[in-house]
């Protein structure tokens, strides 16, 4: 057995070129003036930035579904939790610039609250917000996963429970007195670390961070899935009881990759919110989580790169269709999913003829 490589030389070349192009976009947004042929508009930057965040989610989904065989239909929850955690910080950054010119966010003034509820404590600190971005989805996933995997809940039962989980969370977040802005969620952000959130430079930095994040987790996940840990996951996926009789306890493996996947989604959510400018409970809708699975399936499960492409293709198509033929979009999405399931078991990656 020869040394395992993360990517082939060709793969690395492609990787570097794509990352370089990704980093060029925010530079062109800031330095190429409007009207210049190379100018990148705020609209384009926001759209691509948003899709990159979705791509990170699809990658995280691939870890659990493609490699460990655990189909989550609730990954939108972890994404939203990361988004809300960072959104709290962004709400605090509004300061007294809201409608009511209060220290409290407008929705709390509206509810006639006099003070922040306890769980908002410390959210005016950027670093604490980052801790929450990682810890909240991580802990929720860990606790849920611990009970589910320990009870050996598998397959479609597990998927249905994750749907129920995100649905329940959505209902909770819809309530005004949960303290997260009810069905409006968080929006009208003004600043991030004191910088105006809509300024070209701020957008550019957020975008560049997102590119770096997606590139970084791609390399990290690639490494992880090529380690023995990744091979044990594949073994658990293919024959769980065999794995146990060989001496591996599936629980820490599944729980580890499940929690990691949730945290990766949470960070993607935190990058998404300041770029898109809003987070509300619809991110937790069951349909949203199903869509994440569709991106992954269309791109090609168990390939890491495939789901990135899948998220790009589906969301690119979505943004075009919802503008040009809004009524058709759901049919197109359904058709893409059916075609991928029936004819492309390895998704777009299978079409490209490349092995994982």
């Amino acid at each position, binding site marked *: 057995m020869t040394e395992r490589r993360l990517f082939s030389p060709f793969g690395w070349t492609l990787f570097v070129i794509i990352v370089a192009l990704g980093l060029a976009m925010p530079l062109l947004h800031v330095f190429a003036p409007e009207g210049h042929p190379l100018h990148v508009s705020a609209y384009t930057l926001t759209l691509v930035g948003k899709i990159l965040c979705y791509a990170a989610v699809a990658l995280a989904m691939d870890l659990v579904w493609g490699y460990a065989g655990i189909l989550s239909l609730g990954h939108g929850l972890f994404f939203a939790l990361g988004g809300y955690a960072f959104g709290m910080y962004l709400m605090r950054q509004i300061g007294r610039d809201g409608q009511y010119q209060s220290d409290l966010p407008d929705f709390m003034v509206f509810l006639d609250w006099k003070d922040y509820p306890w769980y908002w404590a410390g959210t005016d600190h950027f670093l604490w917000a980052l801790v929450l971005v990682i810890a909240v989805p991580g802990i929720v996933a860990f606790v849920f996963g611990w009970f589910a995997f320990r009870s050996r809940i598998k397959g479609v039962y597990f998927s249905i429970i994750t749907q129920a989980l995100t649905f329940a969370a959505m209902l909770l977040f819809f309530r005004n007195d949960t303290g997260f802005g009810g069905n409006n969620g968080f929006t009208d952000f003004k600043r991030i670390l004191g910088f105006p959130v809509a300024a070209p430079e701020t957008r550019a930095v957020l975008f560049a961070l997102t590119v770096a994040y997606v590139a970084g987790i791609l390399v990290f996940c690639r490494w992880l899935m090529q380690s023995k*840990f990744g*091979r*044990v996951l594949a073994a658990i996926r293919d*024959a769980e009881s*065999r794995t146990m009789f060989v*001496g*591996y306890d599936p629980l820490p493996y599944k729980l580890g990759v499940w929690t990691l996947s949730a945290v990766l989604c949470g960070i993607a959510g935190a990058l998404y919110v300041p770029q898109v400018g809003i987070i509300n409970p619809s991110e937790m809708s069951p349909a949203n989580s199903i869509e994440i699975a569709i991106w992954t399936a269309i791109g090609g499960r168990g390939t890491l790169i495939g789901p990135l492409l899948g998220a790009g293709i589906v969301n690119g198509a979505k943004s075009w269709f919802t503008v040009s033929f809004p009524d058709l979009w759901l049919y197109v999405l359904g058709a893409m999913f059916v075609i991928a399931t029936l004819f492309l078991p390895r998704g777009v990656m299978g079409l490209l003829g490349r092995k994982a």
Partner: protein
Amino acid sequence: MNGTPQYAPVVAHPYALTGTEYDPGRAAGSVAGGDASYGRVVVPGEVDVSHGAILYLEGVTVSFDGFRALNDLNLSVDDGELRCIIGPNGAGKTTMMDVITGKTRPDAGTVYFGQTIDLTRLNEVAIAHAGIGRKFQKPTVFENLTVFENLELALKADKRARASLLAKLDGEQRDRIDAVLATIKLADAAHGPAGRLSHGQKQWLEIGMLLAQEPRVLLLDEPVAGMTDQETAETAELFLSLKGKHTLIVVEHDMDFINTIAGTVTVLHEGHVLAEGDMATVQNDPRVVEVYLGR
């Protein structure tokens, strides 16, 4: 349990045979779902065979919805023995292996590994680490991994998640895998996916995984099913060479194969031991002829 003092309820360190440091606290935590009561802990990895027996089942009963798949089963297997188990379909042979390996909990009875390890208190993973390996009736390998990787995962090693993150095969482990590949004659197929092997080759790969795992006791459920005569003969040779160093329990329907390897044969019928002895004794037992061999 049955109150016999020599079978004190104790628990073996689940990673006792992995060569890692011994830490009872962590061991206890790492046995997932283990509802064992952690009493006196014996010397890790020591299977006490001072009374000769390495596996000891007494009064084991397993019911599925009222149907007794095992019915007051008694069985004692000596250390280093090659024991053959035969019996008609549905006799409970596979269920017996399920009980020994922790997959099925008996409704009644005791199952001991050596003098001290109560297997009914351990889960599958802990039992594997205690030193019992198993080949399934339907060959089960990791289809999407290569033959080499299948053996790599089976290899005796620290199998905790954190250790797997940075695990690298050393030279000795590679040699061990190569030796197993040679034994099971799959060296040429080593880097192809295991899913592409023939049925007989999968059987051998699974046996190879057992060898890599280095258990004290090997449970082999119909190991030569689907093998050619040549392959069957080679498997018989392999098992005979393992006898003594390991304890083997072989379930088979192939009587020629049994004839070649058997020392003691146990005949199971309706979840109970019908007869036990050497091949000639068993073959001439009228009850055995009636329920199994005669037809």
